[in-house]
Structures are given as structure tokens and as C-alpha cells.
């Protein structure tokens, strides 16, 4: 008996560590979003500030570290990501639906081949898909000469939509296949027998049945497209999506703006998850109530008549909420006491850093400090990455990352 307890205890610890491993980095990152220091950190804690959500700052060494609301690249990438996501949904969902339906209609030998080919894109590394799309369409564009074909064959958005559709269609395909498996074929026959044409059967019987799959595959397609990086980074050519912008920040320098972005995304995700869960629970409850009501109608059994309880029960999660509140109050108190927030704090910190910088400059002029010390820490320098993202000659016909007037 005891060994079972010990085992369970260890399992509990293991799970705790596991969850800490999963959530820890994200939580820490979220906290760094509020630290006004240039590099995301918890200690030293400079000041509590919203700056990274807003305007960012111009660092004392001339680097502009943009905050979320002023980062034009981010905004541009976001819009492109939305466009591409939409394009992918429009293509991938119908493709997935067509493929899944046809799968049910072919004989078994062809079916295996068909299924295997449909699954293949998921087994390819994403970079391969991006590359192959680009090389193929470049060739097409070359052959196509001037005009529309040439333009579109080199358009990053077009290519990205195609490349992503390649494997996202597989996701949609799988979702539809799962839904179709439980479809009652006799419904199609019944509809035919009642006089419907094939097209009518499709739109009146099959599509309504597939609606949940259409909805969920559309959502999944959009999300998969939105967050995709491996394929996009090759196919987007001179354009940018949100993810490639984020990746390029590695070269431009990591600032807490990234933490701010992450926190925004995390919050949106949590809100979406909570809304979904609440809606689902409400739907379940409503369905149960309806069933009970019907049963009651039929049997008129007084045992089934339940008063709908309007009382509000305290959820168990109250403890978590209390904990967060306590920590929050404590932290807030600490901040206020030490004057660690607000614009005075930020201004003071800036002043301190500026003076430190001018000191270092003086030292440099006295040839006592190596140049390396000025490059701002272990990271953020171009050379540390073998120029993966830093090649200024990267896209010759593109204006480059830094040419927009600031």
C-alpha cells in the first residue's frame, strides 16, 4: 500500500515539474513584458511599465526598439498573415472535403494509394514544401515570360498560400474523413429515391452533415496557416508574415516587445479557450435540459421534474483566483513602495543608462575597452547567427528591413 502512495507522490511531483517546464518559460516571458529594461529580464527589475505595448523606445545607442503599437513591420506582417490564412482556408477546406468524399467512392486498391498520397504532405519537412513550391513556380514564371504568370509566380503571398495549402489540405482531409466515417449512406439513397438529383443530395444531405467538419477544419486551417514558419520563410520571398517578422527580430535585437506580443497572444488564446469551454458547457446543459423535458412530457413522471437551480455555486477555482490576487496585491505593494513604476521611474532609469553609456564611450576613447563590450550582450548581434537572417543583400529587389523611414 505504501509503495503505491510513494509512487503516486512521485508521479505528482513529476507532473508538477512537467507542467512547470511547459508553463514556466511562458509565465516568465509574460512577466518580462512589463519590465522597462531593454532586454527581457526579471532581475534586475528596472521599472514596471507598459512601454513595450505602446511606443517602445529609442535606446541610448541609437537603436530603435519598437513597442507593439508602433512596430509597422509587425502590423504589416499581421495583415499579410491574415490574408494568407484566408486564402489557405478558401483552398484547403474544399480540397480536403473533395478528397475525403472521393476516398469513400474508390475501390480498395486505389484507395490505399490515394490515402497514402494524401497523407504525404504531413510527412514532408515544412521547409521542403516551401522550397519545392518556390522552385517550381520560379520555373513556371520564367517560362511564362512577362505578364501575369511571371508576376504571380514570384509573388510571396501567392506562393505561401500554395505551399501551405499543400499540407494544410491534409489536415482538413483527415478531419473530413473522420466525420464521414460515421455517415449513414442510406440517407443519400433515401434522398435519391425521393427524387433528389445528385447535386441536390450533395447540398441538402451531405454538406449539412459535414458542417461541423467544415467549421473545425476551417478554424484549424486558419490557425495552422497563421502560425506556420518553416514553409512560409521560404515561400514568402520578399514579403513578410507575422511569424517571419518575429523571427527576424532575432537579428534586429530582442526586446521585451516580443514578450509583450507573446503575452497578448497568450491572453487572446486563454480568452478564446475560456469562451469555448463556457459555450460548450452551456450547450451540454441545454441539451440535457431538453432531453429531460421531452422525457417528462412522455412519461409525466413527477420524479423527473427538476427545479432549475438558480443558485450560484462557488467553483473550486476560487483558490487559484485568491492566490493570484494575493500575489498581485503583494507585488503591487512592493512596486509602489519602491517607486518602481511610472514614467518617473523610466526617466530615471534612462538617465542612469545614458550616463553609463557616456562613461563607456569615454573609456573607449581612451582605448581601454574592446569593441565587443558595446555590442550589447551575448545576443542581438548579427554575427552570432552566421548571418542567417542578417544578410543585407538577402533580397536584392526588396527595400530591406531597415529602410523604412522612422
Amino acid at each position, binding site marked *: 500500500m505504501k509503495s503505491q502512495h510513494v509512487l503516486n507522490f512521485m508521479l505528482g511531483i513529476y507532473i508538477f515539474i512537467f507542467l512547470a517546464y511547459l508553463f514556466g518559460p511562458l509565465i516568465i516571458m509574460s512577466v518580462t513584458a512589463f519590465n522597462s529594461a531593454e532586454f527581457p529580464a526579471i532581475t534586475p527589475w528596472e521599472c514596471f511599465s507598459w512601454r513595450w505595448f505602446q511606443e517602445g523606445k529609442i535606446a541610448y545607442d541609437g537603436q530603435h526598439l519598437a513597442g507593439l503599437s508602433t512596430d509597422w513591420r509587425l502590423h504589416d506582417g499581421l495583415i499579410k498573415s491574415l490574408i494568407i490564412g484566408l486564402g489557405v482556408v478558401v483552398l484547403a477546406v474544399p480540397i480536403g472535403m473533395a478528397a475525403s468524399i472521393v476516398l469513400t467512392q474508390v475501390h480498395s486498391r486505389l484507395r490505399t494509394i490515394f490515402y497514402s498520397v494524401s497523407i504525404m504532405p504531413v510527412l*514532408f519537412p*515544412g521547409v*521542403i*514544401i516551401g522550397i519545392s513550391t518556390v522552385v517550381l513556380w520560379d520555373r513556371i514564371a520564367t517560362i511564362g515570360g512577362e505578364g501575369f504568370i511571371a508576376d504571380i509566380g514570384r509573388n510571396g503571398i501567392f506562393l505561401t498560400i500554395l505551399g501551405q495549402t499543400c499540407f494544410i489540405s491534409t489536415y482538413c482531409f483527415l478531419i473530413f474523413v473522420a466525420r464521414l466515417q460515421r455517415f449513414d449512406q442510406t440517407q443519400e439513397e433515401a434522398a435519391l429515391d425521393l427524387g433528389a438529383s445528385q447535386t441536390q443530395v450533395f447540398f441538402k444531405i451531405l454538406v449539412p452533415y459535414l458542417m461541423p467538419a467544415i467549421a473545425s477544419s476551417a478554424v484549424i486551417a486558419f490557425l495552422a496557416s497563421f502560425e506556420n514558419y518553416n514553409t512560409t520563410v521560404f515561400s514568402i520571398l520578399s514579403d513578410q508574415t507575422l511569424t517571419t517578422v518575429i*523571427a527576424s527580430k532575432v537579428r534586429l535585437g530582442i526586446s521585451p516587445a516580443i514578450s509583450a506580443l507573446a503575452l497578448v497572444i497568450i491572453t487572446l488564446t486563454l480568452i478564446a*479557450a475560456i469562451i469555448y469551454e463556457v459555450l460548450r458547457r452551456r450547450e451540454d446543459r441545454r441539451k440535457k435540459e431538453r432531453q429531460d423535458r421531452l422525457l417528462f412530457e412522455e412519461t409525466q413522471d413527477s420524479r423527473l421534474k427538476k427545479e432549475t437551480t438558480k443558485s450560484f455555486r462557488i467553483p473550486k477555482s476560487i483558490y487559484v483566483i485568491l492566490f493570484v490576487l494575493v500575489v498581485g496585491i503583494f507585488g503591487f505593494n512592493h512596486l509602489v513602495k519602491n517607486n518602481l513604476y511610472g514614467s518617473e521611474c523610466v526617466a530615471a532609469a534612462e538617465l542612469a543608462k545614458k550616463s553609463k553609456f557616456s562613461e563607456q564611450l569615454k573609456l573607449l576613447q581612451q582605448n581601454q575597452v574592446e569593441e565587443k563590450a558595446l555590442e550589447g550582450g551575448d545576443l542581438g548581434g548579427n554575427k552570432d547567427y552566421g548571418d542567417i537572417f542578417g544578410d543585407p543583400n538577402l533580397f536584392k529587389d526588396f527595400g530591406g528591413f531597415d529602410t523604412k523611414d522612422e
Partner: protein
Amino acid sequence: MNSFFIKNGPLISTYFIIAIVFWLIFLIIIPQLYMLDLSFRPNLPPLLRGGPDDVHTIVHYKHFIFGSESSQDPYNYVDIGVFFNTILTAILVTIINLCFCYPIAFYMAKVANPNAARLLIVSLIIPFWINELLRSFALRILFAGEGVINNILMDTGLIDTGINFIAMDIALYTGLTYAYILLMIFPLYNAIESLDTNQLEAAKDLGSSTFRTHWRIVIPHAKAGIASGCTMVFMLTAGALATPVVLSSPNTYWFTQLIYQWFNMNDNWSRGSAYSILLLTASVIFVLLMMRLFKVKIGEIVR
């Protein structure tokens, strides 16, 4: 074919055929075939392509193995090294991932009560709705020279100067393990969940130790899930780009970074294609190996 059109009506049949041909042929098969072909062609500027110089050659593959003519070494140690480092690291990460996730998956599937299990599932999914890049950045913030971990360690006086987690590849390994946990856990979870709990109880009743129960009963049953999880994790790790870029040290390259270089910096698309084919081959071999080893079919691997 005729019966296909009759069965679906002319309008819908046309839609089906267009959609499927476009997808399978045009988006899947032809690009790969073209890339394969390109990998065998020399790197010509656009004007010379399709001309007399455009013949089939294995110069790029040769380069991978032997290096350029100007180098001293008999073999291309750098590129080959990167390739094998990538593959081996991917295998290592896969194994670590498997060991890491198996207890959790088992707990969720068999030990926990339904509410706890559901809560765990939700809490597992949430981090993965965050972009892989951002998650890697989070780890970066933790592991950097000025990062959180180093700061905490220095502040508490445990160490004097920062530990370079990144150069030591600890950051990379952590990041890679972190990235694809979800894809290992869920196939495992589904596979283990389908095991009849009575079997476990019967085994315990017959005196089997925990280890033996897992080895003889749970693992064979979860074969498909293990194969599926390992395949997906390996492929995504070997083909990863975001995480290595953010977390690897300047001295360690990931093979995909190499491909990126050939493509975008040296503008050598043929060579990039060749290297891509190498990566693809490695992936395919791994998948086939998994399928043979675990005796599962391809349909069981993909979710």
C-alpha cells in the same frame, strides 16, 4: 469514370476532380518531382536555364560528400557533420521526448480521474497554441547570457559569471524537446487510453510488477501511438528551422539552416534542392524504419 460522374452529378464531379488533381498532382507531386530534378542540375543563372548547359549532374551531391575542389579535406566534414549531427540530435530528442511524455500520457489515460485528465489535456494544449517561435524566444530569454536563469543564479551567488547555455547546446536541446511534446503525448495518450483497464488490473492481480506490466502489456498495445509520436517528433525536429535559429549557438548548425544558406544567401537553388532531397530521404527512411520496426501501417501513424 462514367459511374463516378453519374454518382456525383456533373457539377460536383467537376469540382471534385479539379480539387483533387490540383492538390495531389499540382501541389504535392509535381513540386517534389521538380525539386528532385533541379537537384540534379547545375546552378545556372536564369538566362542559361533550359539551354545547352542544363544537363543532369550529381555535382551537388558530390559537393555534400566531398566538399568543394578548393578544400583540403578529402570529405566535406562540415556539411556531413551537420547532417549527422542533425539526425542524431533529432533521434536523441525523440527518445528523450518519448521517455518524458510516456509517464504523463499514462497518467492521463489510466490513473487520473476524468476531470483531472481533462484539465491536464487542456493545460497541455494551451502552451502549444502559442507560436513555436515565441516559445523558443521564451526559452531564449531564460537561457541567454543576460537571461533570467543566469541572472537568478548570479544574484543568489551560486555562480559568478553567466553560464553560456546556448553554446553548450543545452538551450537547443531543451527547446527542441519543448517544441513537440504535444505531438508525442497525444498519440501516446490515445493509444494507451484504448487499452482495456481490466488488463492492467488483471496483471496486477496476477502479481506482475509495474515495470513488467508496462513492458509486456501497455507498450505493445501502444505500439501505434509510440510509432506515431516518434515519427512526428523526429520529422519535425530534423526539419525544424525556427527553434534552431533562435536557440542554437553560432557553432552549431542545423541542417535546415544549411539549406537556407544555399538557397537564400548563395542563391544556389539547385544545391539547396539537393540538400533538401537529402533531408527528405532521411525523413522517409526514418518513417519506413518506424513502420517496419513497430509493424504499423502508414495510416496509423498520422493521428
